[in-house]
């Protein structure tokens, strides 16, 4: 590892640790804490080393090797709905990514939207938006990437938006990809309760390549994350895929995680791939609700 990269990794960890060390308090916007992809969600939302376009929501460094376009919708309790879109385009030595997450929900609190709000119906029509533009490219044997983001949240008549940054590093290692990212680093949101920090999160994860095990392809991913003001959480999942015809495959996925606010401890899903198109389904258990369903499509 070169000296530059060592300093960069140390800085990323320090930023994450500094954010995590802060006292627990409300974070905004809610949408920036939600899963970015269907396949990843089915594997406990562990995707720091992913290679789909929705990796822009997990680790911008992996944009450098991701390709294609994806979209998904997650259905929470009532009419609470998260829609995402992402696309990646190779440019020069690296790649450019664009990602959008749009959340519409109803909130019971006039000022703060916690993840638990997705399991209820409240009186205040609310929404959240993430618009991210990222770029990544190889750098000193690593991949390095950055997202510039616009975050927005409205609850009732209250609305605020802020700029934000994600940075990430990744490297292929031991038949997999090791990824490190710090997300949502930017100025606090203003609400009726005062300033609310962005949900700065540090992720360190590993995603394996696909291994052939008999007729199956097996892969796994694990991530440990530290969200500002919260404890470390760990999550891991796996996928078993079977192909009966060149270009076609089905996959089952599952994951477990240390549940934080609003989340349940397990996820599952399945996928169907036909050449360049993948259809995915994921289910995540949610705290005190029947869980949330998510469907997605990926085109490579």
């Amino acid at each position, binding site marked *: 590892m070169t000296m530059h990269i060592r300093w960069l990794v140390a800085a990323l960890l320090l930023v994450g640790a500094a954010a995590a060390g802060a006292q627990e308090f409300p974070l905004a916007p809610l949408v920036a804490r939600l899963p970015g992809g269907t396949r990843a969600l089915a594997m406990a939302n562990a995707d720091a080393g992913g290679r789909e376009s929705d990796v822009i929501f997990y680790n911008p460094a992996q944009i450098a090797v991701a390709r294609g376009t994806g979209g998904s919708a997650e259905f929470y309790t009532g009419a609470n709905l998260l829609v995402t879109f992402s696309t990646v385009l190779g440019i020069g030595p690296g790649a450019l990514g664009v990602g959008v997450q749009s959340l519409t929900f109803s909130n019971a609190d006039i000022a703060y939207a916690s993840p638990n709000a997705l399991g209820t119906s409240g009186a205040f029509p609310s929404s959240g938006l993430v618009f991210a533009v990222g770029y990544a490219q190889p750098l000193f044997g690593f991949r390095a990437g950055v997202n510039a983001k616009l975050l927005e949240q409205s609850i009732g008549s209250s609305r605020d938006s802020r700029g934000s940054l994600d940075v990430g590093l990744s490297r292929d290692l031991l038949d997999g990809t090791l990824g490190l990212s710090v997300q949502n680093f930017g100025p606090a949101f203003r609400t009726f309760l005062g300033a609310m920090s962005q949900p700065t999160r540090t992720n360190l994860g590993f995603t394996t390549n696909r291994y*052939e095990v008999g007729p199956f392809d097996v892969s796994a991913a694990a991530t440990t994350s530290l969200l500002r003001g919260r404890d470390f959480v760990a999550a891991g999942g796996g996928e078993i895929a079977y192909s*009966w*015809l*060149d270009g*076609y495959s089905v996959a089952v996925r599952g994951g477990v995680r240390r549940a934080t606010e609003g989340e349940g401890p397990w996820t599952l899903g399945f996928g*169907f791939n036909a050449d360049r198109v993948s259809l995915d389904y994921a289910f995540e258990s949610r705290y005190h609700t029947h869980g949330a369903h998510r469907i997605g499509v990926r085109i490579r």
Partner: protein
Amino acid sequence: MRMARRWTVAAAAVAGLGGCTQSLKLSPDDSKTVLSQQLITAPDPGEPGPYRVKYLTYGSGTDRRRAAYRDSVAFRTAAVDASPFVTMPRDDAKRRKDLWGFDIKHSPLNGRVWYPDGPGPFPLVVIAHGNHDPTDYSDPGYRYLGELLASRGFILVSIDENYINGSLRGENDGRAWIMLEHLKAWKAFTDSARNPFYRKVDWNEIAIMGHSRGGGAVVHAVQFNRLSRYPDDANVRFDFHFNIRSVVAIAPVDGQYKPAGEFDPIENVNFLVMHGSHDGDVSEFMGLRPYERLRFTDGKPYFKSAWYVYRANHGQWNSIWNNHDNGPRSANRLDLRALLSPDEQRQFARVVIGGFLEATLHHRTEYLPMFRDQRTIGHWLPKTMYITRFQESSFRLLAGYDEDVDVTTGSVPGVTLEGDSLATWDEAPIPLRFKNDEQNTNAVWLGWNDRIAGADTAARGRPASYAISLSDSLVRALRVGDTSSVVLSLAPTRQIPPPRRAPHDSAAKGRRAPKPPAVHDDSVPMDLTVELVDADGHRARLPLSLFGPVRRPLETHVLRRADRERQAFREPYELVLQTYPMPLAAFRKVAPSFEPARLRAIRLVFDRTPSGTVVMDDVGLANPDPAFLISGR
């Protein structure tokens, strides 16, 4: 109920999406007719011979992964430095060193030897495997050939090149060089009184064989054997000069390594190349290119033979590879239903390789006719369809279609070409099956349709024809006589030109252009008449089908998915020309007044099939060794 309906819809959707696999499509098998006779009476060269077979391995004696090259070696060999020929990224080199325990600078010379229990000396045959999973060791996969050949009095060495298998590219020069280093090591074995092969090799009778990339490497090895320096780095000296008499290429690649950027020239060896129509790895008959490049220039007797084996694949020539042409998941990608059984495919290899080595190294001339005409060994060959090319060193080219852009001149002075009533007459490169790939030789396309356009569907015009006229001096120079043969290579295509326009048809003005060529109706047999004309105008006519099977292209679908097949290949068949050696004596028999020594024209008359298109190349005359003709054909 609602859930059940959802699952049913989902299952139907999956089934529908997966339903784009194609049904099994094969050309009608004519082998019962074509292979109905057995005219060679010598013993089947695919059956074991009189010798008891012995087996040993030699090598480094330190192999980390294989006992056969560690504890079990009969004697040890020194490593060689293959680094000038085999290059790889540093990471790959490290990974390989970790895997094998040695680097490319210390490449071992490991080999498995099947040899006859006898005093010798015996011909030596070296076979090199091709690229495959490095840890699924390829070298034991030719045991079936080793046991056969050893029993018939050959020493067969299957050399280990697994350590350069895998992801490397452009390393075929290394495969060739390692093969020659084995020969060099064998020279030392046979010179050492302590070695079990002391004086057991007949150094005048050497053959090299290779499969896949190994099949590409044998062509390089022939070249390197003659060179004094490595073409890509003249600081590397060569000093081989073995008497390599015969070369066998099994489903070879070609041109992955090009010395000095050129396709290898190859000359003055006997050459056998074979390829399966359903090869899921090298899915085109690349071996036709070295076949075409091979020249016989030193006046000695040689021949070359190419076999296209319908329903054979890439891997079943090696008993380790089998039907995994596309890796362990081949069944997902490749249509394996069409394949010959492994035993059938390997029996073909036994017969044809056995016959080739018997003919060229043991000089058993009774096996020569099988290469001129597959129908002489109908009972030895597994029942499938074969397209064969053949040329021996007396062949003299009249029309090769490569020398210029004038379609009326042949390849040598004194040859003129003329078409009559042809709908198609042009010269073009012969394609290979993959898009944008070619056989690197030109041929003539001849299309005809005897029907006259118009309401009268029974109206026919004069049969189209194509004539190769020869000057008197040329015929004399070529010493054409009763024992000479006309030789040409030809393949029908699937195209039929539109009917001819009626002569002087004023109503044709303003008529729409003829429809583009349609696809042939396979139910109409394809044949044509070969007419020879002497200086006095005496004509002798025989159907081409008398001299070999005349077939439309063999339908070939390698992949399960029709869309992938269309993306990869230009046609659902490989255009492989069949060689028809036609003894002039056969023509004289039907027309006694015809004088072969005064031959003036070779005419193809398209009077046996109303419409069609053929591709023809390498028209010439030969005065072959009578041994090629002894089977009564």
